[in-house]
């Protein structure tokens, strides 16, 4: 039984469909990356999992309990950090952290002090005077100080400096080592790549891809740069080859995983002098979904015109 499960979750606001039949599964001890462009529906999904919004149809369960009905029970074992942390201007950071940990149920003073140290946070300042990053740190300290089993982060590092971002990543890895589960929504793909075991890509309310990074990579292209004895001019016209940059015997290109075998066959016939290959980054993967989508939209337009 997965720790967190959303099955066919649909959410509409009026006649706008924000989520359309979304499925998510986060297992115990797993860090799940949730990525997608602005307005894709990530925060909406997370708010459903938090029991702040109710599903229009489908089912969202956490720890096997209904996310809407059993919200309070669930939240005792869960911690959440939003991307846009809104705090009370006239309370201090320290007061807010105490409030949050108390409301969550568990509080560990020593751990809290440690985290404030690590995140370099001054708890005596009024929230009004905190910078965006410092407000985020308040929520992060409260979350990491809890004994939750499941952590949900919605773009938690959008205001953090690179140093703090790294601190955040270290803390998440610690959680992972401790066997906790994490749902991480982020626009920073390198972060997702570094931390996540599995990734789900959402676009316009639909999950368009899920799987481990390895699985997803399989669906996409390798970066190849090569130097050969003889020119490889046919490369540009081969199926499954993209972004070709050729300079006589040297060249770099991308190749779809399915076409790898035939392309490499051709290249090796030309006598390989030097070859480098790099796995696709998540960014490539992400971009490919856009490109292919734009392409398919262009197709549709083309079809309409015919």
């Amino acid at each position, binding site marked *: 039984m997965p720790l967190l499960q959303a099955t066919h979750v649909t959410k509409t606001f009026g006649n706008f469909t924000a989520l359309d039949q979304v499925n998510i599964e986060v297992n115990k001890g797993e860090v799940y990356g949730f990525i997608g462009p602005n307005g894709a529906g990530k925060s909406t999904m997370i708010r459903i999992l938090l029991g702040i919004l109710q599903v229009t149809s489908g089912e969202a369960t956490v720890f096997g309990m209904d996310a809407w009905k059993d919200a309070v029970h669930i939240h005792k074992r869960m911690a959440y950090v939003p991307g846009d942390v809104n705090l009370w201007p006239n309370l201090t950071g*320290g*007061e807010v952290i105490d409030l949050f940990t108390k409301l969550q149920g568990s509080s560990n003073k020593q751990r809290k002090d440690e985290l404030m140290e690590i995140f370099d946070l001054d708890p005596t300042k*009024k929230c009004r005077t905190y910078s965006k990053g410092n407000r985020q740190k308040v929520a992060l300290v409260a979350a990491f100080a809890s004994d939750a089993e499941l952590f949900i982060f919605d773009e938690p590092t959008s205001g953090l400096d690179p140093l703090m971002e790294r601190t955040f990543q270290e803390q998440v890895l610690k959680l992972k080592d401790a066997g906790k589960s994490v749902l991480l929504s982020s626009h920073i793909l390198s972060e997702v790549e570094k931390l996540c075991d599995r990734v789900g890509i959402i676009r316009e309310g639909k999950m368009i891809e899920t799987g481990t990074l390895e699985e997803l990579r399989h669906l996409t292209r390798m970066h190849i740069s090569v130097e050969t004895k003889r020119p490889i001019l046919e490369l540009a016209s081969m199926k499954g080859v993209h972004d070709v940059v050729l300079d006589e015997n040297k060249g770099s290109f991308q190749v779809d995983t399915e076409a790898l075998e035939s392309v490499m066959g051709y290249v090796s016939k030309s006598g390989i002098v030097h070859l480098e290959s790099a796995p696709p980054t998540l960014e490539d993967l992400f971009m490919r979904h856009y490109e292919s989508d734009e392409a398919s939209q262009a197709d549709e337009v083309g079809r309409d015109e015919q």
Partner: protein
Amino acid sequence: MNNNSFEKTGILARFIMRRDRVRLPVWILSFAVVSMVVAITFTDLYASVEERQAIAETMKNPAMTALFGEAYGMNDYTAGPMMAHQMLLLTAIVVGIMNILFVARHTRTSEEDGQIELIRALPTGRLSQLSATLLISTVVNIALALVVGFGLYALQIESIDLEGSLLYGAALGTVGIFFAAVTAVFAQVVESSRNAIALSFSVLGIAYIIRAIGDVSSEFVAWFSPLGWILRTEVFVNNYWWPLLLTIGVGLIFVGLSFYLHGIRDIGAGLFPAKRGKSTAHTFLLHPFGLALRLQRTGIISWLIGMSVLGMTYGSVLGDLEAFLSDSELMQELLQSSAGASITEQYITMLMSVMAMMCVIPAVMVLLKLKGEEMKNRTENLFSRAVSRLKVFGSYVGLAHLVGIFALLVSAVGLWLAGLAVMDDMMSLGTILQAALVYVPAMWVMISLATLFIGFAPSTVYVTWIYLGYAFVVSYFGGMLQLPTWLEKISPFAHIPEVISEDMTYGSLVVLTIISLIISWSGFILYKKRDLLG
């Protein structure tokens, strides 16, 4: 201050107009329509000289002066003087409220929400947003003055002549400009728009109280209140224009002060640097109720002080009232023969209902805070943790009821204390408290209505204000305008027994209580079931 400080004021002013393109015309028209309807009603209701002078007699006492202000032209109490006496002050207060809300919205609220930062990053002047806001508020107040003035004149009522009508409108507009300026100053001094609004409302309240004290006992004191000034136009009777010049002159000083203060502070900040606070939370804060109370502490305390001062002010009139009654045998006969209640008792009963309605305001504001929290995405902080909706909603609803009752108690005690000081045979505290507390079920109905609307959808809460305003108008003017009984009975406050002069009856109180329980309960159910905005 260089001459770029006002750059692009015109464009920003147009933008403000655009944002408020519905609100502002509605406000202006409402003032005009209400003023005209009341003027017509006065004319129709009191057609004969006898009727008019009879009502003038009942108006000529300190209690009425405290409520409505100094009366002029009582020897010929026609529609004009009636308007000046019974409508001007109250309308002026509402105009003041409108201006306070308008200016705060476009200055400190915009700043809090970060909009000003965006605007200032564009090639606009440092003072442009403030000057655009004040410019539009001035335009609106002038429009209000003209629309109300010509509207009244258009009725062609004999005692409502052109000069008087224009002066009446101008008096309202002037008060508006004054309170717009006051709010502009507070918007620079404090960091949150809530506090800026609260401080401006306090000035309005204090102006009312100073005027009441001044009108009843000392002309000199009344000169310290802008509301006192505009009443001294003696509109429709003597038509003095110069008190308006005084009001505008002082208003202009405040405008200058607000520009100066704006120049010397940082954006987003108040005048005073933020202090450091505690690094850990008090245990009291660690519960949604404690949090709700802590967040509104200052506002609640201010309201309690304000209500007790108001109670004392009204109470202090009792002595004058007693002296007045013993002087005027005619009045004594008139009132004591016609009804069983003495005029003091009637006065106290009327005050209790007014004060109970006033006490609904801080209570509903507590609930509005929950709406504000939701709009600012802060309830998410609670509901994403192990806190049930029932607990948070219950905390706010409970706090609202507590604040309402406490406000009522302190105003009643204030009234009793002041009465004790000025009267020889003041009623017992028990009687006064009972007279106050019978209104609690009516307050419950109002508060539970706000509960229902927040549970249903926060954007609908304003309906509560309309209903409260309605209840206020029918109780204040019901007798005067001789409204049909059913119109009065729509207000829950109309069903409260007058326990000072009549016997206590429980029937209607029980019904009101049951109604409010049902409404509240629905509010809770709806709040549990709906999507939260954040």
